[in-house]
């Protein structure tokens, strides 16, 4: 897994419509990397055919 850097966050924040100061991005960085690491660990649990828990039901349109 490639670690996200402060510079990455600086580029990503405006794309998400967020105007965040550097100190705020710095505080966010460890949490974002922890979340990304968790997702990488989850990927190891799922098989190619695994479908997400949330699916669309055509019968009731939800």
């Amino acid at each position: 897994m490639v670690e996200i850097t402060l510079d990455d966050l600086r580029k990503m924040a405006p794309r998400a419509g967020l105007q965040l100061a550097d100190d705020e991005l710095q505080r966010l960085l460890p949490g974002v990397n922890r979340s990304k690491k968790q997702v990488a660990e989850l990927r190891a649990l799922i098989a190619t055919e695994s479908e997400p828990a949330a699916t669309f039901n055509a019968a009731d349109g939800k």
Partner: protein
Amino acid sequence: MLQTGNRRPVNQNELCYLTITEAAAGFRRKEYSPVELTGALLKRIESIDDKLHCFITLTAELALRQAKQAEQELRSEKDRGPLHGIPIAVKDLYMTNGIRTTCHSAVLENWLPNFNATTVAKLQDAGAILLGKLGMHEFAFGGPSVDAPFPAVRNPWSTAHIPGGSSSGSAAALAAGLCYGSLGSDTGGSIRTPSSHCGVVGIKPTYGRVSRHGVVPLSWSLDHAGPMARSVEDCAIILQTIAGYDAKDPASADAAVPNFRSGIGHGIKGMRIGVPRVGWFDENLGVDRQTETAFNRALEMLEELGATIIEIDGKPFSHARKANQTILVCEAYAYHEKRLQQAPEKFGSSVRRRMLEGAFLSAADYITAQRARAVLNEQIRANFTLVDVFATPSAPRPPEAFATMDPNEQNLRPSFTNPFNLTGLPAISVPCGFTHENLPVGLQIGARSFDETTAFRVAHAYEQATKWHKQRPVL
């Protein structure tokens, strides 16, 4: 001492610590009345809540008006059931018609909803009395807020310690004798953790069992509404009132609502209790030693009561936190996106930091977590061929002190509550001991989907075999 006519004298404190069952019976024996109990609680709130900060909004006038109505109705034998005339309070994310609903946040500091949450309406139809709106973690996320417009709730067992969250006020008010029942909400443990930390009982029902209509969302696919009280039976009584299908909630389950008290008193002889210890309890920093000792003693008690303890694989439970947290931050960010873009400074620093993480996760990350959710659900539920319920500590450690609280530490210990949000399975927390510092510890019992009745049965058997639930904080 209170003495009215021929009634038995009742100490004010005892009055405030009655269970719902006791209060309801007392009304019908005419030992005390809804107006007396409401008055006693309002007086106690006035005298001690300035050090606990359980209430954000007190609805004293409304409560007294509802109490008078309940009293008249009970006198004229128009009986609405076990919650008739019972003073309760709700977490401040339940929408209340014309009553401020803040989510403990500057964002909604003066918001007046124009309808009641389905659960609030059901409680009012059952004749319950609304004392007010309770403090919480801001938007049910993050930790105790130091920069919110309302002070953080304190733990009645030690005001230097956190009460747990996010339904902090809902648990602390019960422990302090400020209400007889309350509503909380639970997305990752927000009913069960504060119940554990404050020595009260709280159940996260099955996903879909209780309507979320009119409950401000944190994470649509993980949010659960549920009751908290000072006894297992009281929790069952409140759940009975608020459970049931609601067309206004897309996740509401059209499932039959059983009598939740039907298993109470039947004992647990022959019950198989699964403990997912291996591969989970020793995760990173593991479980606090005093917590594990209290939990192991609870297991011994359950065995004495006739249950069999079976060790099961803890790994799927351990993974559940990763999926739960990923889904939670993505959905929470999606719900609050516009506000976070336009006025992030209105959010407290703790909740803002947690929610903003969601802006930097991708759609693929979210879907990966939902795919893992399906896999883990299957693995966790497969255990029900071997066991009837799961048992774990409710929280991995006792309440932390405000002064030394480390918000990152929770990621270094196992989350015992998250798997039940991810799977939607019901889980209840019941008091199971105290630390050397006299801080409460909770036991969690998880059951099959829509089988809250069995969770109540096991929790009640344990509760009645011990005295933990009878302990009161000194205030």
